[in-house]
């Protein structure tokens, strides 16, 4: 289905036929064709001519037109660092800890880690895997995210459902699987060697690397990646906050780093040496990380990056920062997918987000400042692969969105186009998703056991196995077998709201190791 979105276009493109500069914006239209790609980006009302000239006007004869006025039409946000399986969990700190953790192998060994994180997450992946994914992906949509990394290992590809799951995306079968490889856990030298080979053959590798304080031992993970031949253009290194600036010199054909400042500050009290990385030509992206030490979505993480930049005097402009959740990760994905992403230009993926313009600002407000300051309430429409999946009632109606249900975000009504994971496009509401997650919370033991029996029955009968997910983070110090003796002892904390709310900000103050820096996040939302 084709779609036309008219508004203030912020294309972030280098295509000079679309815009004179990467930071340009203009009133115009984005034309998404039947192939779910952007057919054209036009200025003013000249688009019809552009489309006619391209010979694709028939595709748009009956296309719905969504007119967002002065609101911003932006490339869909890309979150290159997440862990969907842990999305419903609240921020975590080890009680009574007074000094930051040295590195990523320390906090999983703390006594409360498994009971606070691994076991509740296990309850969700085992008893309600589809609902867990739905929750995590809806939360991403609410923050304007159209592509997300960090899907849990799954027994079936998570492709073409809601937001793009970066590791599983095949663009409707146009590209093969395993174009994007990922690992949360530290790999052995021979495994890194295999990844080096895969990257030389065209794969992109997203790797948690050297996560910790700069003086910590995990810096050797970066050296191991170097020794294995992984420091290539197609490497996307998550964190690298333990890496000293000089070491970036060894990445001679630089790829990208995913920066998750909230998580870094929360756990380690320091964050990645971003200026040094940028100085070596390494591309910078932003990732929201996970529930226990991250923001709710990458739009929130953008604000943390801004806070850090300001506090450290790094001088990132709103444009620089917005690129870190659009064009920069889009270029990373374009390498893997051979399709432009994170930029609005002909041939690019039909992923966009509409952000409310800053009505209180000057007559020609800086669109990038508006995006930086935008909250979930400012996300008016999210289109993935040409399909309107989430937005205001008005815009979803204009976009002819089908099978939508009501969802309330921060007290505002939105419509959500969600279908069941395994249900022949049967509509599904967030309310139902939440209801099932709450059932798991209420009785983890019964729901886990029941799900296990169903899975086992499918194996016995030869029926297709139900959706199965696995945890991708360290499990922590657990008994052999990984779980408490009595599953009813699993305490699943309250499922977190989809948006950054007052309780979230309240839970930041006086916790973690950010020395008050993250307290400033709430000001963006006040």
């Amino acid at each position, binding site marked *: 289905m084709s779609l036309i979105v008219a508004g203030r276009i912020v294309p972030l493109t280098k295509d000079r036929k679309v815009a004179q500069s990467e930071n340009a914006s203009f009133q115009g239209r984005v034309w998404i064709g039947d192939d779910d790609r952007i057919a054209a980006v036009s200025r003013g009302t000249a688009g019809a001519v552009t489309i006619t000239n391209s010979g694709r006007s028939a595709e748009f004869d009956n296309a719905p037109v969504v007119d967002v006025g002065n609101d911003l039409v932006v490339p869909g946000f890309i979150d290159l660092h997440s862990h969907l399986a842990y999305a419903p969990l609240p921020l975590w700190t080890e009680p009574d800890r007074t000094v930051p953790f040295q590195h990523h192998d320390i906090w999983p060994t703390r006594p409360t880690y498994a009971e606070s994180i691994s076991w509740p997450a296990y309850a969700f992946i085992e008893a309600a895997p589809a609902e867990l994914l739905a929750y995590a992906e809806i939360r991403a949509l609410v923050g304007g995210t159209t592509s997300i990394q960090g899907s849990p290992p799954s027994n079936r590809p998570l492709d073409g459902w809601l937001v793009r799951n970066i590791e599983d995306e095949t663009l409707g079968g146009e590209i093969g699987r395993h174009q994007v490889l990922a690992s949360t856990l530290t790999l052995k030298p021979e495994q890194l060697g295999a990844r080096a080979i895969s990257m030389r053959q065209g794969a992109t590798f997203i790797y948690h690397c050297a996560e910790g304080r700069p003086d910590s031992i995990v810096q050797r993970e970066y050296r191991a990646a170097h020794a294995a031949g992984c420091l290539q253009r197609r490497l996307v290194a998550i964190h690298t906050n333990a890496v000293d600036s000089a070491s970036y010199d060894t990445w001679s054909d630089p790829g990208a780093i995913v920066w998750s400042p909230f998580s870094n500050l929360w756990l380690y009290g320091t964050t990645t040496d971003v200026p040094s990385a940028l100085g070596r030509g390494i591309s910078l992206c932003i990732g929201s990380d996970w529930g226990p030490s991250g923001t709710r979505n990458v739009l929130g993480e953008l604000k943390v990056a801004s806070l850090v930049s300001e506090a450290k005097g790094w001088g990132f402009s709103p444009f620089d920062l917005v690129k870190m959740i659009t064009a920069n990760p889009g270029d990373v994905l374009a390498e893997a997918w051979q399709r432009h992403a994170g930029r609005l230009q002909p041939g690019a993926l039909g992923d966009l987000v509409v952000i409310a313009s800053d009505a209180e600002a000057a007559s020609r407000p800086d669109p990038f400042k508006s995006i930086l300051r935008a909250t979930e309430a400012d996300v008016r429409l999210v289109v993935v692969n040409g399909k309107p999946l989430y937005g205001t009632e008005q815009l979803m109606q204009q976009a002819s969105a089908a099978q939508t249900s009501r969802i309330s975000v921060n007290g505002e009504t939105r419509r959500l186009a969600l279908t069941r994971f395994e249900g022949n496009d049967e509509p599904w509401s967030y309310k139902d998703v939440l209801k099932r997650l709450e059932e798991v919370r209420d009785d983890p033991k019964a729901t886990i056991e029941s799900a296990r029996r169903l899975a086992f029955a499918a194996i016995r009968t030869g029926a297709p196995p139900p959706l199965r997910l696995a945890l991708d983070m360290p499990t922590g110090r*657990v008994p*052999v*077998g990984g*779980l408490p*003796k009595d599953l009813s002892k699993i305490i699943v904390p309250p499922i977190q709201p989809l948006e950054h709310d007052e309780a979230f900000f309240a839970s930041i103050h006086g916790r973690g190791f950010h020395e008050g820096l993250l307290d400033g996040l709430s000001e963006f939302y006040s």
Partner: protein
Amino acid sequence: MDDQHAAASLLQAQTGQLLSDFLLGESPGGEPRRRERGGGRGRRPDFRIPKAQVLDGGERLQIIDTLIAVIGGVYCHLPQKRAAYALDPVQALQLLRAQVVALSEGEFHLALTSIISGLRDAHTRYSGPAAKQGAVAALPFLVEQYGPYDAPTFVVSKVSAPELIKDARFKSGVILESWNSIPFARAVDLHADRETGGRPDARRARALESLTFRALECGPPPDEMAVDIAYRAPPRGTLRETRIPWRVVQPERAQINHQPGSRASRYIAADPAAEAVRRTKKLMFSGNVWEADRSGTAIAHDEKRVKWIRTRFQDALAARIVKNSSSGDLGYLRIWSFDVEDDDAFIAEVMRLLDILPDNGLILDLRGNPGGLIWAAERLLQLFTPNTIKPARFSLLASPMTRAMASSPFNRMEFEAWLPSLEAAIATGEPYSQPLPLTDPAWCNDIGQKYGGPVVCVVDPNTYSAGDLFAAGFVDNEIGPVVCVGEATGAGGANVWTHFDLREALRGTSFELSVLPPDVGYTLAIRRALRCGAADGLPIEDLGVPGIAYEMTLDDLLQENRDLIAFCAGLLSGIPRTVMKVQIDERTVSITTRGLDELETYMNGRPFEAVRRISDGAHQLPRPDAEIIEFVGRRNGEICQRRRLGLNAG
């Protein structure tokens, strides 16, 4: 259901169908029965079992290839079996594969069963396309032996419903002389050659059991449709002959048994055939208990002249007070099985029974226990000792398949702990992974001692698997003496998985297992048990747990183990006895002791006061503000009693 109806229903279940009908009769699963008249209400239930499916060549190859993969890749006893019996099951399966299509159906299953049973491992069983899972071929009487091992006497200790045996003289107590014209002892030994079991005595014990009960899910049906038995009434009655037909019955599973696919089902150590036979014995000889299992109602065992304590775990437990002239009243706790889904509930029920039983001494009888949930067996140990329980540890075979299984993200919870040593084995050459407990040591000590009197444990070669683990834990944690009818326990030392468990665990790896033909399956020992304590590192498989030898007597068989109980009572009386009883009220805690000279008190795991020198009598202290209070009683420095109680403070 009224009594008459219930009795008729039970008799119907005990009658089942004749083996001849089962093997040669018409299949009820196929076309409609032509002989059947009418239908609907009042129709006699069809107890017949569908006939076995015939496998084509492709299906046979599927089975063999799967067995080659799993026996070569994850069967945890493979190195030991190769050493102990000089056999190579993988090569044998490869040879069978070459001729698989040319064999008749019967030849194929026989050849395959022979290879698997050659492992002499009751955990590892091939289950052909049985007509119906759970079916057991049964004769309506129980044979047991007494006397010395090299000159045993075989006696009918129990008979089922009189309707099933035409010869009224054939009853409990008759001595068996021959089986199909073969001297009875010789017939048992011949049958033992087909049985699993690492030692000759274990094979004979299992042969004696399976002589009259064959779990069809785990092995071939009897060769004959009926048996000709020569017997005489004791001591020198007239030699008589009778012919008794084999019947096929469905013993079903009890409500408390573990459920396939549950979390507990991954922590099973049991002989599936022996478990089916155990249930069949219950159906045939304790029908009311079997009926109660189906409905989940609490009942006492129905042995004549014996008063058993009512329990809702009657499938697994039976308890009574036994009178003994020298030691006074003793407790007798029969643990029939550890096959339970909920080990917490099982242990809670044992605690309830222990409260009722006298504290003079306890006989734990695990004879014939075919195993079950490992957690149930290992956690139970703590109730009988002040010592900290160390559980057995389990290893995986170090192979590419187990490494792939342990590396799969879907198995992280289950196998992550084994992965480092499996990977290290590539460099170290170790044939096994690091051994790790399946029952976390904290779980084995989360309740503490509940029975303060001396305890003796009775086992036999049919005490198997989780039963072996209990016996090993009993010895290795120095709880008390083990009395063994036979040389040792049955020697099944492993955690057992089914094809479905393995298929699920190997999904997504390069060793993915295919679907097997309908109703075909197997069970496989995948984690090898090693003992702790003084026997640290010794495997249980094929060795078992030896104990103080005891030979059964005729009185034992016919008089409720009279001599065995007297023997155990003698052992118990020789164990120095101490007593500790703790009572808590709103303000005080009272500790009554006997035979102890020191008392230590701990609050929330920390010392509460200096060690008290004590003598027999009552001691009091104010009720402390703590969640947990623990008392340790010593005698000459040795810890003899320990009680831990929750105070629900605050």
